[in-house]
């Protein structure tokens, strides 16, 4: 009985640990000058790590999944809502996603429409790889003497 309780509780404990770690990492990231007091906004995209306020919405054109949607900056993580370009944090207001079975690209754009960064993700190696045509191996004609 006690073991069963532990088994049931363990995932929740793990989640708590992960959440605490995530919160810690983000809080560290957001320790810049001008960051608003309190930690509530630091876990979402409302403010940059330097304390800049996001314009509000992020529009995603997800061609890999044939969908398009809007999110509020406060609904996404700070890392999703902001990109550091040089020494400046830039708000992400548009995301374009393209991809196929083996590859995904996420292009993130700023408020002025400029490309902030583009990331290529690749499939895990367990997925069937796109194999090139096998190279044929010449075989001798053992039976022939001509």
């Amino acid at each position, binding site marked *: 009985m006690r073991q069963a309780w532990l088994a049931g509780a363990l995932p929740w404990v793990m989640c708590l640990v992960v959440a605490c770690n995530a919160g810690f*990492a983000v809080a560290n990231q957001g320790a810049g000058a001008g960051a608003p007091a309190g930690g509530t906004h630091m876990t979402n995209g409302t403010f940059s790590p330097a304390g800049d306020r996001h314009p509000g919405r992020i529009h995603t054109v*997800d*061609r*890999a*999944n044939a969908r398009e949607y809007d999110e509020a900056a406060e609904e996404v*993580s700070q*890392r*999703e809502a902001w*990109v*550091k*370009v*040089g020494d400046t944090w830039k708000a992400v207001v548009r995301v*374009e*996603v*393209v*991809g*196929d079975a*083996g*590859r*995904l*690209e*996420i*292009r993130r*754009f700023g408020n*002025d*429409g*400029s*490309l*902030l*960064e*583009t*990331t*290529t*993700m*690749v*499939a*895990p*190696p*367990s*997925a069937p790889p*796109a194999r090139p*045509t096998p*190279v*044929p191996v*010449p*075989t*001798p*004609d*053992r039976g*022939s003497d*001509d």
Partner: protein
Amino acid sequence: MDIGQAKVPKESGGVPTKKTSSPARTGNRGIREQVRSTEGYDAQAALLRPPTPGEAGPTVKDLPAGVLILSSDPQYTDKQYLSWFRDQVKAKVACWGGAFDPASVYLAQKSVGPDKQRVIAMNWTASWGTVPSTKEMPPDFSWSPIDARAAVAGVHALPGWAEVRAENQGILDNMLGGELNLVSRAARDELRPKFPGLPSKPPKDQAATLEGLIGSQDALPALSTEEVSTSSVTFTLSAPVAVKDYEFRGKKADAEKYTASFSDGTRIEIVAPKAPEAGLHSHSVAEAADALANLPARNRARVQRVVLNVVTNPDDPTWAAKYHRPGFHSYMTAGASGEVTIYPDAVSNPLPDANVRRGSMIHETGHVWSYQEWGTDTTKGKWAEWKKCMDSDKVSVSRYATADIAEDVAETVRAYGSTKGRPQYNEYKALVPKRWAMLEKELQ
């Protein structure tokens, strides 16, 4: 004599022949020497009369116009492999309706400096169309140059060819007739299974099938993955400078900063973790510099720094879930600041090979270059000009390129950067002429 040093003619695939031991060592395999040196043998005569069994093969000096080298690999240039090579060529030409004479494939000798190199040669058959410009077949035994010419000849022989619009005839000739590029290989592979059924169809149906290749996703390679081996610059790496607590993505860790100095004058910083994170591995600093060396100069000019990140991209779990790609992980990020981040992977997973590493960097920096150079509105200016080129060319370099205009640019830049200096370059120039002309102007 090290025949691996033999110069490959420029019109060949540009892939050096496998470095092997001298032909004499094939004697260790217990195979009788069948070909003797035949100084002064008239190679042109060999075109008309291949040697009979037991007769010494011809010496092919400057490759007469109608002679192709099927293999120079001493492992296979022996008479007991002749039937295998004959079967290979026969299969390639037969699928396009071509007839094959086994006697056209024979053993010969090629002059390599003062030495002789045994080869498997083939006299071109006129009914297969024009002789390929690739005289030495690529070592992958794909026979793609033979396949290309035979495909074009087979298609031209169809009554329906006359019904294909003139502008599309040119496009199809380039799609099917490219001897080495991956787009043409994919187009032929798409048509190949359909071709045997075409002669029995009405000409207009034949034409429809052929024209259906143009713009078909199925007639394109998934990605532009031409071999990247055209580095035009060399580089040196500085000694590392230690950096305490470098702010990598997702983790601070001690780092080492290197400066890669390229022979074109470009200097790019490369940051690597001082020690790899347990369980992760990544490309080396030299491999990162090598990828930079293989970029088109304009792409390289956009890069300020390469960061070999200490941990995987912290966004991976979020993105994999959000975009329905379980297990996907980031390989590379290119940023507007000129920073390229390469992420490590679990040591249990193999790292991407040199071609993926170089090609991905061309593709990703191609995005940065195009957006910064052409602006953010992909419906205006140079982007609109590119769109017109796309519409005119009708063909794309890969299926991935058809995702949107930004991918079309990045994939075409990748094909451009990958093939520069090799025969495939001119094949792409024929396949996507308008886009290539624009890139030649923009990236020169």
